[in-house]
């Protein structure tokens, strides 16, 4: 990756290195090559398995049979697995359920977290120390699986999607990150808005939140990924198989190698390959995350840092 030679005369491109300080020695060829190799291998170790999954999901039954299973070199590309999965039925329903839970849950979590973080960001306000203690203490203990299970059951949340949202709705860590960011916004700005007659809700909505886009993007991603990836609470609190979100369906289809409801016959006889169907479900689970997270990436460090330092 870094095998390009440095010639000081070369016009600086987007991939070029910034000028080196004069006191720093030039890197050796061997050092550069070694670094490039390790970095390339690390990236390949992550991308190669994903490549196999994506390519196999796009392969026809013939290509899969010829390869003896998983396909590495794409040939005979077809979208038949996706067409079958998305034309109604178990996986379509599960995907819609997952999308809705992720959207509703993330919105709820963000609303509660942002309000709480702003409420705690004005140090010196009444009770803010106590509330902070109550939240912080939860990072040191956990009530345990069994009591939590019994509580959710007692609240009548079994077989309800609320059981997938409420118990895990807020992360204290995320609130602290948001609070750290909000605390960095200058008091003068907030004061001037107050002179103009804005209340706390309005200040939060029109001053604080627009100034915190970076951290809001990061925390939204964290919550969304949390909801999208969750499967345990669904396995615990939902009994109805038709209510299961995508991750739980993926456990059945990929880990336990069952055929999707209604597609068993097509897989046995027709063009459809069971393996391609499994891989297509995996791609559906990874695609939203893989597409969204790089956009938020440049904010990660900023968002994490302010929270970690001031928390």
């Amino acid at each position, binding site marked *: 990756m*870094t095998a390009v030679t440095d010639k000081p005369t070369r016009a600086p491109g*987007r*991939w070029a290195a*910034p000028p080196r300080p004069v*006191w*720093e*020695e030039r890197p050796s060829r061997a050092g550069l090559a070694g*670094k490039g190799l390790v*970095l390339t291998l*690390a*990236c390949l170790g*992550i*991308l190669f*398995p994903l490549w196999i999954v994506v390519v196999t999901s796009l392969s026809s039954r013939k290509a899969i049979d010829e390869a*003896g299973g998983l396909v590495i070199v794409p040939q005979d590309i077809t979208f038949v697995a996706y067409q079958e999965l998305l034309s109604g039925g178990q996986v379509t329903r599960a995907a819609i359920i997952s999308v809705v839970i992720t959207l509703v849950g993330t919105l709820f979590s963000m609303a*509660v977290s942002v*309000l*709480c973080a*702003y*409420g705690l960001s*004005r*140090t010196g*306000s*009444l*009770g*803010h120390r106590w509330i902070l203690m*109550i*939240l912080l203490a*939860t990072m*040191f*203990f956990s*009530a345990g*699986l*069994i*009591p*939590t299970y*019994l*509580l959710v059951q007692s609240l009548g949340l079994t077989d309800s999607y609320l059981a997938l949202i*409420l118990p895990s709705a807020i992360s*204290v860590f995320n609130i602290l990150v948001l609070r750290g960011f909000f*605390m960095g*916004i200058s*008091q003068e700005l907030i004061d001037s808005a*107050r002179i103009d007659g804005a209340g*706390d809700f309005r200040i*939060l909505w029109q001053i604080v939140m627009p100034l915190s886009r970076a951290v809001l993007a990061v925390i939204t991603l964290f919550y969304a990924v949390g909801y*999208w*990836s969750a*499967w*345990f609470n669904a396995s615990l609190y939902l009994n109805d198989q038709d209510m299961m979100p995508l*991750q739980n369906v*993926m456990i059945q289809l990929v*880990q336990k190698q069952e055929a999707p409801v209604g597609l068993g016959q097509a897989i046995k006889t027709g063009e459809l390959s069971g393996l391609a169907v499994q891989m297509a479900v*995996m791609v559906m*689970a990874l695609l939203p995350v893989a597409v969204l*997270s*790089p956009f938020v*990436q440049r904010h990660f460090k900023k968002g*994490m840092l302010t929270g*970690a330092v001031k928390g």
Partner: protein
Amino acid sequence: MSHSTVPRSRAEAEQTRKTPVAPGDATGSGKRPPSGKLSLGLRFRRDRVLLLMTLPAVLLVLLFNYVPILGNVVAFQEYDPYISENGIVSILHSPWVGLENFQRILEDSAFWNAVRNTLVLFFLQLVLYFPIPILLALLINSVVRPRVRAVAQAVLYLPHFFSWVLVIAVFQQLFGGAGILSQLLRAHGYDGLDIMTDPETFKFLITAQSVWKDAGWGIIVFLAALASVSPDLYEAAAMDGAGRWRRMWHVTLPALRPVIALLLVLRVGDALTVGFEQILLQRDAVGPGAAEVLDTFVWWNGVRNQDFGYAAAAGLVKGVVSLGLVLAANKVAHLMGEQGVYKK
């Protein structure tokens, strides 16, 4: 209003009229105007909106983090889930058995097996997993081209956002009985092998999965620490004749030390929690002999066997020991002159 400090409400305006605040007194970021002289009632009137804003989060935390602590009383009961649909009613009517559940735990070889597996996995991850993000961060930090850096980071962070279900499914495609490794072995005339169900190698499989998923993400804190080192330090060291490696040893590593200490403290405090979801997903394939850890032990006995009192007792033991570990780890960090999770 001509005050440089703006009163937040009528209540405070009245107050400040009596005791004018010196200009510039309350301009620190995030600082409320001095409130020491305000009475509790006035402060409440001033801050009631802020309090209202924290209310939903506080209620959720109280309900789902604090109330369940009381539910641990079932550890001292012969809890019968069939008394009522409602767990609270069942708790009230279940017979008390004192410490019987805890006695059973101490004599249960399955429990001690879970303890052993948990500790083995913890130490294995500490040795094999923990150093990798540090090394990767040093590597990435030494890459000066911004584009190369950004691309490498994007790829390395990616698996952190995958669910455990997906990560394990991916590993199954690599190392499972029908995975790519077996496929290649068979194509060349060897026997295929199924690493995903082998109890012998399970602990290494778990560690490899953790590295694949989270080692890349782990570099982010170290990169932040590295970015905060002043370039002047490197320049001064270079002027004094320190080479590449001596600069790393005397400048870079000391900058990382507090972060490393903090993460070690967190890790040790969390020693009894080793990848619950990850292991639970593979428990059936590998078998409880190798794949039972404390958390899955609680799950199995409580959720599967409906032996709630027994499972809650095991969970309580784990919770109390964990709390002790967190506090002890912090103490050690403070003794070593590091910050730890909370301040002294």
